[in-house]
């Protein structure tokens, strides 16, 4: 099983930009949403769903997952819904139901709403990594050797989220159990709700922390989808070590007036801002 798209270069970049446009339109319509974090993760989601993750879409629309993905930064669900829309799994009209009463699109991922696509309910921070570690362990237990590439589990965390201690319990366990098929991707946009992470609670040196916990540590430009998939494809899944990809991103990436502005953590574009955002995203 492989990724059904395997896109790269400009076509993959356009996927990320289209996801961003949908995010702006959706959050403007909802008059809410975590716009900044949705935008920072767009290239990571594009790289995963349009190149890295191995899955097959069946005739009835259900999905068979070989690799699996958990969005630990559950507030970034807007980006995920828009990625699903870019995949053709949701239509643009349904995106307009984001945050509406009883819609399929609540403000954090709910697997009961979309059982084929959402692995687990996240929203409280520091939950995704322990769950991903358990899932990676189960996948390895299920693997029938010899197997060329084991089923991989990807988990996307925020960087402020790494202030939660539960992540480090899981990091210790992931290394202890040698979960080489676990890939933690940190959306390192350097901003959390209140301010820059280094002003609130400095998570650096992140690379050395993960290294000390026994991880295979890598850095990349998290707003370059090609760089992300190339790094993930180059990882050694037989080295007995869990992986971390510190994906350096810009919160609000792609729209000039959102980039690196803390207020855009939980802010939506008005009509004029939306127009400008769409223009910028079409031309970059």
């Amino acid at each position: 099983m492989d990724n059904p798209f395997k896109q790269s270069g400009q076509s993959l970049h356009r996927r990320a930009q289209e996801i961003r446009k949908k995010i702006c339109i959706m959050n403007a319509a909802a008059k809410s949403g975590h716009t900044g974090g949705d935008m920072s993760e767009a290239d990571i989601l594009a790289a995963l769903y349009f190149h890295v993750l191995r899955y097959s879409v069946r005739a009835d629309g259900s999905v068979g997952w070989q690799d699996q993905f958990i969005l630990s930064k559950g507030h970034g669900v807007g980006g995920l819904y828009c990625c699903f829309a870019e995949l053709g799994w949701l239509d643009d009209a349904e995106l307009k139901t984001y945050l509406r009463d009883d819609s399929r699109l609540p403000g954090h991922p709910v697997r009961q709403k979309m059982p084929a696509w959402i692995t687990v309910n996240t929203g409280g921070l520091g939950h995704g990594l322990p769950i991903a570690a358990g899932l990676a362990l189960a996948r390895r237990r299920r693997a029938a050797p010899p197997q060329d590439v084991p089923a991989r589990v990807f988990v996307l965390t925020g960087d402020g989220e790494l202030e939660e201690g539960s992540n480090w319990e899981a990091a210790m366990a992931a290394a202890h159990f040698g979960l080489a098929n676990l890939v933690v991707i940190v959306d390192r946009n350097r901003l959390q709700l209140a301010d820059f992470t280094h002003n609130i609670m400095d998570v650096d040196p992140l690379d050395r922390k993960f290294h000390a916990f026994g991880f295979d540590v890598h850095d990349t430009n998290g707003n370059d989808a090609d760089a992300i998939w190339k790094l993930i494809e180059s990882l050694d899944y037989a080295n007995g070590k869990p992986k971390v990809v510190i994906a350096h991103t810009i919160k609000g990436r792609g729209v000039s007036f959102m980039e690196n502005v803390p207020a855009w953590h939980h802010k939506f574009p008005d009509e004029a801002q939306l127009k400008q955002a769409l223009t910028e995203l079409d031309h970059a």
Partner: protein
Amino acid sequence: MRDLADLRDGAVSALSRLTAAGQDIVVMVADSTSTSKIAAFLDAYPDRVINVGIAEQNMVGMAAGLALGGHIVFTANAAPFLVGRANEQVKNDVCYSATNVKMLGLNAGVAYGPLASTHHAIDDISIMSGFGNVQIFAPCDDVEVAQIVAYAASVDGPVYIRLDNAKFPVVHDAHYRFRPGRPDVLIDGREVAVIALGSVVGEALDACERLQQEGANPTLVNLSSLRPLDQDELARIVADHDAVVTVEEHSLHGGIGATLALLMARRQLHRRLTTLGITEGEFARYGTRQGIRRHYRIDADGIAHAVRAALAG
């Protein structure tokens, strides 16, 4: 004199039987191999026990992940650290996400008596009851716990089972069949119904047998299935008596006394209700378990006293 047996032995032997029968069971512990008395299972199935160390949040999170990966996962650690330390993982990763995780709350109530309130779990039923999607059981003997563990393994989704480290009297014989939701009537008597929770069913049974010698004939109900709970059946039992006495080694906030009070109020069942348990709004006293039970009148003497008072009106 009844035989005494450890609930954990019933649970662990059931896990071994189910695994031998082909169920894909994984047991997770947080350095709690001795607490859970898991040794026999560990010897037979060493690759089916996962010890995450002293890290309860990670134990429950990983349990959810292992369940998503297809395993039937049992967590086995002390109840205070499960419902307290890993509270949000229990809520989100297990209950809200409806993952196939069965949580064994070991040494609940004041089982850790003299180790004091950090180690007591007098709020586990209350806390679990606040979450959706989770079934809640409090077995009273090793016969019942084995059947509840088998039932838990057979249904998809979250289950909480309140366990203990003491030996409890075996009140069920081999013919007993646990039925989810059913109040288990141990003595079918009259006038007063004693309704007891798990670890103090033995105390209540002692009390009832003493009262029988005095010429009284109270009913005794083992309320082991808290969710699901057949409210109609429980209401029928209440309606058949003049008075109800609830007994629990749990806070009176959110325990079975509160359950009965709500049921009786909703159904306008005007019966005398006496709720025995740990005073709400307090941490339990510390000391020997028997001393704590005596203090809160949830030992056989206290229960017998309450029933006599109820009979006297």
